[in-house]
């Protein structure tokens, strides 16, 4: 039982970062933009949050965790939005190819994260190991009282606020997309921008906003990883390939935020399953690490077999929209 509880905890810990990425990407894809830059954007969010907190903690004698938290949160969100803005300008205004732009953004973003992560101490005047203890602790703070409820407390209440924020964002997003006028408009833009345009919806504005806000949400995934998972430290490429898994999760969840919640926990579980299967040696562990990707491929193949109308990607996903092309 104890091992199982820890497994669930760790699975959620792995999953939340991907869930942020996936939720941001769902918003983006609902507007018809396939942003393959999400892995880079998550790196950008992570490093910007860390830098914000680091510069703050370095500049005051007694750093206050809450202030550091707010600063790093804002830095992460804004920097990730900046990544989304680059993508938007190139694909929406300048109509560059979405796949290529996304991949360029990933190259840029991952390099950006690793460059500043690896050079931050040098740029700040050789301070050695970067650590933002006060801010990291603030992110890890659990809800007082509730986390002592035994197994229930361990499974549901042993996380920092970013975990709960993520679930809240997923719920709000599900409501927004399904029940509000603006959500309907957004989906219309993604399905058929020509029709949406004819109905008087400002396609460009929806695409810009959805991509930038979506990127901001994705960037929080990087922040989550740096602050809550790694406790306020940076390791180069430490975030690994979770960004691509976030994109995989979007497909796995069939573009539905609520599916993404349990999907992320499943992905997180698959990601670390090899640690909990007894009797694996090093080589078979590596085989188990393939699981999240293989599962995604299976989901891709199965959805393409079934071709049910509800479970398809937005119709204009990946296509640029130019009014005069119609």
């Amino acid at each position, binding site marked *: 039982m104890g091992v199982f509880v820890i497994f669930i905890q760790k699975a959620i810990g792995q999953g939340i970062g991907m869930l942020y990425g996936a939720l941001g990407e769902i918003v983006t894809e609902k507007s018809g933009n396939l942003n393959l830059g999400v892995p880079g954007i998550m790196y950008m969010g992570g490093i910007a949050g860390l830098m914000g907190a680091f510069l703050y903690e370095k500049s005051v004698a007694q750093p206050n965790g809450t202030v550091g938290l707010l600063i790093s949160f804002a830095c992460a969100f804004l920097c990730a939005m900046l990544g989304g803005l680059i993508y938007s300008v190139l694909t929406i205004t*300048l109509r*560059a190819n979405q796949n290529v732009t996304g991949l360029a953004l990933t190259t840029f973003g991952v*390099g950006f994260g*690793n*460059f500043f992560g*690896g050079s931050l101490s040098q740029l700040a005047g050789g301070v050695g190991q970067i650590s933002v203890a006060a801010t990291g602790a603030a992110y890890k703070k659990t809800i007082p009282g509730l986390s002592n409820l035994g197994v229930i407390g361990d499974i549901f209440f042993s996380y920092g606020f970013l975990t709960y924020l993520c679930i809240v964002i997923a719920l709000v997003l599900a409501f927004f997309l399904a029940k509000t006028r603006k959500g309907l408009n957004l989906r219309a833009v993604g399905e058929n921008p020509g029709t949406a345009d004819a109905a008087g919806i400002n396609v460009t504005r929806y695409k810009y906003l959805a991509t930038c806000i979506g990127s901001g949400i994705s960037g929080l995934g990087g922040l989550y990883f740096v602050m809550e998972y790694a406790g306020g430290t940076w390791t180069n490429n430490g975030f690994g390939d979770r960004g691509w898994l976030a994109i*995989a999760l979007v497909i796995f969840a069939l573009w539905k935020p609520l599916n993404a919640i349990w999907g992320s926990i499943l992905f997180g579980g698959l990601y670390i399953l090899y640690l909990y299967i007894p009797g694996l040696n090093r080589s078979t562990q590596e085989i188990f690490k393939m699981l999240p990707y293989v599962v995604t491929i299976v989901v891709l*193949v199965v959805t393409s077999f079934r071709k049910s109308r509800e479970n398809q990607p937005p119709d204009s996903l990946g296509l640029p929209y130019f009014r005069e092309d119609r």
Partner: protein
Amino acid sequence: MNKDAMKGREPLAHISKRDEITIWKAWGIRLAAILLSLVVCAGVIFALTRLNPIEVYKAIFGGAVGTSRRAWVTIRDALTLLCIAIGLAPAFRMRFWNTGAEGQVLVGGVVTAAVMIYFGDALPTPVLLLIMLVVSILAGMIWGLIPAVFKAYWNTNETLFTLMLNYVAMQIVTFCIVFWENPAGSNTVGVINSATKGGWMPALGGLTYGWNLLIVLALAYGVYVYLRLSKQGYEVAVVGESESTAKYVGINVKKVIMRTMAISGGICGLAGFLIVSACSHTISTSTAGGRGFTAIIVAWLAKFNTFAMILVSFFLVFMQKGAMQIASQFNLNENASDVITGIILFFILGSEFFIRYKVELRGRRKEA
């Protein structure tokens, strides 16, 4: 008054599609974008290192081609990038988004390494190299064919399928490293056959990377001819433009998709062979090192023209090497090269817009 109201509503710029553009003007726009990106890069490097911009370019130049050894490393890496981009060209010509070059390179590299490790000292070098070449191409082909079959028969999304296969390939590599690690416990393969040089690509005419040069340039020419002049290349282009048209004129679309992806994956597998046998003599998860993704952009920017790819890949690798040199000089992280690559790519991607569309500002339009 009415006229004034109209004037207020007219947008700042008017965008219209260009009918055609002279090749010189198109390359002029690209050149302007590249120059602009270089200015921005210099600005970024200046902001980080306080190095005077002229010095920045001196340092980039020195880092990329300063010594003959550096120049050859730059040429070698550019050739590798070029090889992958050439492999991607047929797939993109068909509008098949092969984002799996990274994985195709890795499986090509891993089987090459396997042959080197298990047969490296048992077979004569020419036979060994030939076997390595063939198995690497076959491995890449298989890796490219898997998503192609699903795309052809069930229209499974190839962008994400190939992307996921990259990571499956990466796990295969780490799986193999467990058995091949040298020295034990290091979790790396180390230089394979460092004493006997079994399976190492020999020098050609005194040039260490002569074979790379020969093979990749031959491929560039071959794929150019294949896409431009052969019947199969024409079929690829038709399928890319419109599958319905292709079906209507009697092209077997499924066959074309699978054949093209086999070629695409095969060339990427060959790139894996070149990396392992002729460059690094080892295998790791970073053997492809993101070049599979950069090559996608190279292939796209060059508009599937394999000769334009030569220019683009040399330029990118040149800048990367230069940026890495500056970074190490200032004790900064070598990922600076990715940041520089990203900035340049953003500018070139953006410049394509001005080649395809004409932008007329409000004021100027009045006069016309």
